[in-house]
């Protein structure tokens, strides 16, 4: 990791409205060179709008942003020469082969025919698309298409890369592949801004996180700090016999010092805890009482719980806004 203090991306007071809908309500961002910023939020929170402004595809209604020191509105051309952009929906040309997609971008960037071909071959190899290189992109699987999209955004060796929900809709294997690629790019010194709906993804890849809700930044910090802010872990105990629910609840209450919630339908006793220290106590008491359990776990907060803690509402309530964001594309 580089230790430079330079700022790669800086945004101050970004506002974007569509009619009466406010997509961004004054967003500040700062990404030091060579680091990864995760923008976390539900559909419709304004993540894509922010990326589109920073990628010169949209003008903000007010506020300003610089990327690599260039203003995204007044010096859009210079910004475009140092960024790579990977959209939420892979923006490759589906009616061309993967290889031709990459050659086309190389040619547009001013490479000679030979250089563009060489660059395309190199990227196909790197993204394990050599065998599929001459097939039209329409026939690619979701993971392959996403890899091609990533490769397309890397043709010009950008120093700053935007990834808008790079793993949404991918299976775990494909997702791991994308993560690996992002990690390697960061090792090479690329600055990355990544939007995601998954706390796990932000946790795995980013140096710091901002949480968007309704077009505003509602929290920011390192992943660990956010999780601490986001609320407590929970200790879940599921007795093998539904009849033991009450006794398990009593044992948990005694051991932790807080009354647990009892879910009769799912046969689950659950209690918020600050750390895992009460777990051995619970295990010992259950053993003494001769109660068998099918599940005993310490659960990290889910995205919904993070949102609940940070915003006072869950991520699920916001489906209607997602449509508006889609329309702005």
């Amino acid at each position: 990791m580089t230790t430079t203090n330079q700022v790669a991306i800086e945004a101050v007071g970004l506002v974007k409205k569509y009619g009466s809908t406010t997509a961004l309500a004054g967003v500040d961002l700062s990404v030091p060179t060579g680091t990864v910023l995760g923008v976390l939020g539900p559909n419709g929170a304004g993540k894509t709008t922010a990326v589109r402004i920073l990628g010169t595809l949209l003008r903000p209604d007010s506020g300003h942003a610089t990327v690599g020191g260039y203003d995204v509105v007044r010096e859009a051309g210079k910004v475009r020469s140092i960024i790579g952009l990977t959209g939420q929906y892979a923006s490759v040309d589906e009616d061309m082969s993967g290889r031709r997609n990459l050659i086309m971008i190389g040619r547009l960037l001013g490479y000679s025919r030979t250089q563009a071909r060489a660059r395309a071959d190199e990227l196909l190899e790197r993204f394990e698309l050599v065998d599929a290189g001459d097939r039209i992109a329409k026939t690619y699987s979701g993971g392959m298409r996403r890899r091609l999209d990533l490769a397309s955004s890397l043709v010009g060796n950008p120093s700053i890369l935007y990834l808008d929900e790079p793993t949404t809709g991918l299976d775990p294997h494909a997702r791991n592949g994308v993560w690996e690629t992002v990690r390697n790019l960061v090792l090479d010194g690329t600055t990355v801004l990544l939007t995601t709906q998954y706390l796990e993804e932000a946790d795995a890849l980013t140096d710091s996180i901002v949480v968007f809700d309704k077009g505003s930044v509602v929290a920011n910090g390192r992943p660990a700090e956010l999780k601490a802010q986001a609320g407590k872990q929970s200790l879940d105990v599921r007795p093998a016999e539904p009849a033991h629910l009450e006794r398990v609840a009593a044992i948990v209450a005694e051991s932790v010092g807080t009354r647990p919630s009892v879910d009769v339908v799912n046969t689950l006793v659950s209690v918020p805890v600050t750390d895992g220290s009460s777990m051995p106590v619970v295990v010992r008491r259950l053993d003494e009482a001769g109660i068998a359990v099918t599940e005993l776990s310490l659960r990290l907060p889910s995205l919904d719980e993070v949102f609940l803690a940070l915003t006072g509402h869950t991520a699920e309530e916001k489906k209607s806004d997602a449509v508006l964001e889609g329309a702005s594309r």
Partner: protein
Amino acid sequence: MSTATLEPAAHRSRPFAWVQQSLTLAWRNIVRIRQNPEALADVTFQPIIFLALFLFVFGGAISQGGGWRGYLPQLLPGLLVQTVVFATMGTGVGLNDDFAKGVFDRFRSLPIARISPLIGAVLGDAVRYSLSITVLMVSGFVLGFRFDNGVGNGLLGMLIVLLFALSMCWIWVWLGLVMKTAQGVQGIAFLVMFPLTFGSNIFVPASTLPDFLQAFVKVSPITYLVDTERALMSGGALQKPLLITLAWMVGLVAVFAPLAIRAYRRRT
């Protein structure tokens, strides 16, 4: 860093970079045609089928004793006009599709001239139009059509119909940019294209039409383009229809190209 040390050529130092970028994007449209032959059906099979249908079904009735052979010299120049006029709407549909699928976002995030994707789309479609003109003319020749007014004039006719298509396509470029969906563009296009091409002198002599339709045919640019094509390919009065056609071409470009470019700038 990656192993290759390829740096993009300094695009800003090359004043005509946009030309090369436009050509690259035109090349893209041609490659898409080659890799997706089924998308070509509307400019290849459709004209052949139209030619066969109209020629063999209506030929005997319309040519009054000449049979389909007598109808061919009248039909082919007209069908040529209908074919390219229909092909122009594909330009708008394709552009709309590129925007909807995010392909234009990719172009716009690259350090290239803003106008290049639009020029590339139109140039690429010029190839598509040329292809459909060629397919139709070759089919006509196979069935016995000949340039009775000389090969030079016949080729000039093919060029003029191509230029007309390039003028008219700006309507669809504009609609493709302002309308929400490709299906919407297509819907409007069919609504306009059918009355425009069938309500004309393409298939039957205009004198056989009812008065109100004749009034429409007299102002329709299609009529004059068809007359121009017939004059160049088979013989007849050329000057008046040619001048009116050229005036329409200038008018279409003067009105719709600025509208299209304004809509394009607004979306990019």
